[in-house]
């Protein structure tokens, strides 16, 4: 069994959901319960493989590629089915499985209009294939395929199950990311032709730097930057995000915030920077600058919002700014902070979107002005919202802190050769962002949760948090606290890998 | 025999087919034009097969057979669709079928 999983565990983890989706195809549309069960079982099976991976991962050598496989795939272009995980990808892979399971559980009785659980869950499963695959791929073409695989299900999720302006949002999302992808694949091809006729990431890391002249590398990095930065999204490429988030169904928002945004930052950490460290060096101050602009800009954007979901969406821009600031320092401390920030943001913002969805279910509006007194009508929901707001603003002891503070910390001392004065300015600006974060989150919390319920809802009977919600949320809430108190759980996995990959920069 | 004579025949049929597909209003005629295109491809495949010796020689024929099969399926489904359109609109004029108008 172990031998089998050693060889095929990752493949199973990636493709089990696809199997589930195929099984669902042959089940008639009417049998909703069967669909739910099939979806749950396949995500759980994939998750079980994930747990097995967690237990069998060699944490002492987390910088090595583990459970790796390399089979020939497209021989003509020397692209291989090369997968494997190290300390950087493991947390994200597990997060992706984990979130998908919770999304399926949450979906149990939360299907948005036009209902159709079969299609919805099947899309969710296909999404998971794409996400998991992206995190395990060690070949650029394979990575690209998975990276793009994510697009379509999300497009349909927004476009079919979304809000009133879903078509617009879906198209915007699709075009934006597709534009980025186009530049990205160009850069991949350039890496292939200039970097040594291979798409294999570990090999490219070894040889690309030497084979590519600095100027070319700058251009290639630029292409990669566009591809990943749009996905992150960084200022000023972020405008698809609020629309997509606002229009997407709850589950879509959760997956979008929790995993999809991480594909971009992961791309930076896994591909762009290790393969082209020198170009990264030149680009980093600009990336850092955009990151801090994003922090402040996102926060200001939040302050101006009147819609709960849109506010959370804008807060993602700010939070991913912290992640990108950590990455831009190019130091192990900064990268660790970025990975932590990715996981933490996944849990916290995912949770916030869940709550927003539940609020919408109950009040049929997300206008902050029309809400109020949530704590009176649904105290548990209200307190969970408060808890997540606190986590999101980076309260120490909760996961969000470890994404924010170390990013600030690392900005004081960026990698050798970069302007310290500049990054220290970034540090101070980013710190100001934490106050603004407190501002918009607590402002939002005060408006929605404090006070007495507004008249229009005063007589409504509002359900407090119910079964499937508890099931889906408890693990995330627990994760936020546990990671907040014991950051070592995550950092011990990532640190050796980060050290191995980034100490040479 | 030149290989080109077959290939040019294929090209001619193909282009005639394309013209038919683009210019014909009647759904059944469009399907017929598609058959032309498929036949053009088959000629090409067989001609390329004949160019080669050894196992590759057979590949063209096998592919042509597959295409004939697929064409049969395509005609079946295609005519069913045309029938459906006809039933809904009492006409098979494809220029009136514009549900995809953006």
């Amino acid at each position: 069994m172990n031998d089998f999983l050693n060889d095929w565990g990752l493949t199973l983890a990636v493709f089990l959901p696809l199997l589930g989706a195929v099984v669902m195809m042959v089940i008639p549309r009417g049998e909703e319960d069967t669909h739910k069960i099939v979806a749950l079982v396949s995500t759980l099976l994939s998750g079980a493989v994930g747990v097995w991976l967690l237990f069998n991962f060699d944490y002492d050598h987390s910088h090595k590629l583990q459970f790796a496989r390399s089979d020939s795939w497209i021989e003509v272009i020397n692209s291989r089915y090369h997968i494997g995980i190290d300390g950087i990808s493991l947390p994200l892979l597990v997060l992706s499985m984990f979130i998908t399971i919770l999304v399926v559980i949450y979906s149990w009785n939360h299907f948005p209009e036009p209902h159709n659980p079969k299609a919805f869950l099947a899309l969710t499963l296909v999404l998971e294939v794409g996400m998991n695959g992206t995190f395990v791929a060690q070949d650029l073409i394979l990575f690209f395929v998975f990276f793009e695989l994510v697009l379509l299900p999300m497009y349909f999720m927004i476009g079919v199950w979304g809000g009133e302006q879903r078509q617009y949002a879906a198209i915007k999302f699709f075009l934006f990311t597709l534009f980025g992808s186009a530049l990205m694949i160009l850069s991949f091809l350039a890496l292939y032709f200039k970097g040594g006729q291979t798409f294999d990431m570990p090999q490219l890391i070894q040889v690309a730097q030497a084979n590519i002249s600095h100027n070319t590398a700058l251009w290639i990095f630029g292409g990669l930057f566009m591809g990943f930065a749009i996905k992150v999204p960084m200022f000023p490429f972020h405008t698809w995000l609020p629309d997509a988030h606002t229009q997407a169904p709850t589950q879509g928002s959760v997956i979008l915030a929790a995993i999809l945004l991480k594909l971009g930052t992961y791309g930076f950490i896994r591909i762009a920077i290790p393969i082209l460290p020198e170009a990264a060096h030149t680009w980093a101050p600009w990336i850092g600058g955009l990151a801090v602009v994003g922090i402040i800009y996102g926060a200001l954007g939040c302050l101006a919002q009147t819609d709960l979901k849109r506010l959370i969406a804008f807060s993602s821009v700010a939070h991913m700014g912290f992640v990108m600031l950590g990455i831009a320092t190019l130091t192990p401390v900064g990268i660790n902070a970025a990975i932590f920030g990715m996981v933490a943001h996944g849990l916290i913002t995912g949770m916030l979107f869940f709550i927003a969805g539940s609020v919408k279910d109950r009040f049929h509006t997300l206008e902050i002005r029309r809400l109020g007194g949530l704590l009176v009508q649904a105290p548990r929901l209200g307190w969970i919202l408060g808890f997540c707001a606190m986590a999101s603003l980076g309260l120490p002891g909760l996961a969000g802190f470890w994404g924010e503070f170390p990013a600030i910390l690392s900005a004081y001392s960026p990698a050798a050769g970069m302007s310290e004065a500049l990054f220290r300015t970034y540090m101070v600006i980013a710190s100001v962002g934490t106050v603004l974060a407190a501002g918009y989150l607590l402002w939002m919390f005060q408006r929605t949760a404090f006070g007495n319920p507004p008249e229009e809802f005063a007589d409504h009977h509002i359900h407090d948090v119910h079964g499937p919600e508890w099931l889906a949320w408890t693990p995330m809430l627990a994760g936020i606290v546990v990671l907040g108190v014991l950051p070592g759980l995550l950092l011990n996995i990532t640190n050796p890998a980060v050290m191995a990959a980034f100490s040479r920069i | 025999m030149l290989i080109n004579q077959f290939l040019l025949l294929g090209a001619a049929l193909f282009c005639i087919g394309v013209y038919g597909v683009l210019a014909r209003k009647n759904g059944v005629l469009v399907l017929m034009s598609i058959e032309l295109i498929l036949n053009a491809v088959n000629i090409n495949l067989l001609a390329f097969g004949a160019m080669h010796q050894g196992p590759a020689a057979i590949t063209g024929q096998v592919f042509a057979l597959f295409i004939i099969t697929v064409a049969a399926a395509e005609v079946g489904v295609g005519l069913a669709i045309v029938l459906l359109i006809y039933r809904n609109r009492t006409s098979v004029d494809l220029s009136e079928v514009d549900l995809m108008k953006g």
Partner: protein
Amino acid sequence: MLEHAWVIPAITFTSFWLILFFGRRLPKGGSEIGILAVGSTLVLSCVMVAQWVGRAKTLAVGHGEEIEHIRGPVDNTVRWFTSGQFRVRVGTHVDGLTVVMLFTVALISFLVHVFSTNYMEGDRRFTHYFASLSLFTTGMYVLVTASTTLAALFGWELMGLCSFMLIGHWWEEKPNSNAALKAFFTTRTGDIGLLVGISILFWAAGGTFDIAKINQAALSGQISHTVLVVAACALLAAVIGKSAQFPLHTWLPDAMAGPTPVSALIHAATMVVAGVYLLARVYGVFWVGFHIPDGGFNFVAAVGATTIVIAAVLAFVQRDIKKVLAYSTISQLGYMVMALGVGAWTAAIFHLFTHAMFKALLFLGSGSVSHSVHSFDMVDDMGGLRKPMPKTFATFMVGSLALAGLFPLAGFWSKDEILLGAGENGYKVFMIVGLVGAFMTAMYMTRCVYLTFFGEYRGHGHPHESPLPILGPLYVLTVFSVGAGLLNAPFTHEWFGKLIENETFFHAGVATHDFSVPDALISTVVVLAAIGIGYLLFFQGKLPRGVTARQPLARVGYTFLANRYYLDHIYTGGVVGGISGPIARAAYWFNQNVLDGIVNGVAIVAKKFADWQYKYIDQGAIDGTVNGSGHGAEGLGGFFRTIQTGRVQQYGALLFGATALLALALVLTV
């Protein structure tokens, strides 16, 4: 126990979860868990004090007489996580300062718990209240036992959170939640400095959060002075925010929207002194960064001194008894900060300790009063309460005199020590400011006591004495308000000072000074004068308008002719009318309108700017570019529109045409 100080926060943290999950099902709504937990931490902290005292003796045997009173800290740390090449540890660092803080926090917290069982009875969220108290106590414990700046940050922010929850305890009313938000924002603004400061010191000290190492690095000159100044300024910003120093003090009076016991615990005795504690903890950074030993002037002392005066003046014009106490707290915190600024480290901690006792006493006393008259308004709803509430009156009186600094109560000793330190270390100006502050303190407390307990009862209903759970804590605190000062008196050989003495700082030259009788006399005279003037002004109703006010002032002033501060006193007395009149009002106006206005204005401008940015830049420019390309496409005549006919055959024509074109391109290029 000294090695296992982590047990103390662990207990209250457990208690928090227990109350949260099981509190509602218990007969007393979870308060029993809270009291039990905090009580046991009180016992443990007493044990720690005893062990710390005992530790001195064992060390003394080993090292001879010379270092008798120096005690090295007890550290107990474990690996927390590793990031990059840096191994970050977490754990406890126990020294004299820690044990004193632990004891103070545990004592006040315990008393407040007991007090609250009665005071908060029947409250809407009784259980939540106690859960928050437990969590708050945890935060404070974490802060004072922290061995690293990072762990201290945990406690620091945890308290901020609890402060937020407790100020906004009655969040149904908008002003309460506004106050909670204001408190959180303001302290959070200061926390920018904390984050930046911690980051700077982490790198400057060679990649460590360890406070002891940071202090050593700062004192040994290992860190460049520029870096130290920046770090010190950053940390000072945090102190200003958390300890409500000028100009970020405006949140504290508003924070009185919370329940009174909370004000006593959080906004008088413990959380607000966190800033002072932090200053004292990383004192090495300030000591070197601001050139504290050089005397004359420095930024820390200036902030403290400004705060003393600004806040004290404001205390004169308040109608709300809790706001008087709040401004008084700000002013007293100013004393502590100033003490640290002038190098009187021990005095600052000592004042922190005594202040916690008598200010908690005063707040709980005001709680007892309001419990009985159901109001905090001294002018409209109080007066003459000494008769119906004799016990509350007596304890409040002791607290007020202790705050005023009357010999031999607690406030006298600690305040005197600060003034002495300022004088001896070459900060004469600050000593004078301190005296002015003392004068004003005594006077506004006279006013406060008069309005509350003397004169005619102006309220409605029948005030009655409070029950034992409320009075009990008052009695205990009264004892401490009387006796705490004696711990560091000359005749106890400055036992307290030796208890908290810090090895590192001692070697760096942070010194204490022997009790000085002339100085003590000066401050006593100032206080007595203030009380006297206050008596005349308020009790006799001779409000300082015109000549009648000056006559008694002059008479009082004559009795202090021998005093070398005679002129100052006349001057001070002469302007009292002005101060308590228009200037104070103007200052308050400034406070409410300008400072608050700036805070609000910044918020409004930020909001406006945010709106503008969102509307024009985000939705207009950037989105516009994106949408614009779409509009532009539409603008290209009907071209793109005509493509979108929905007719498959047209799409097909385009497809084949485009393919052919591409093929042509390929043919031409290859």
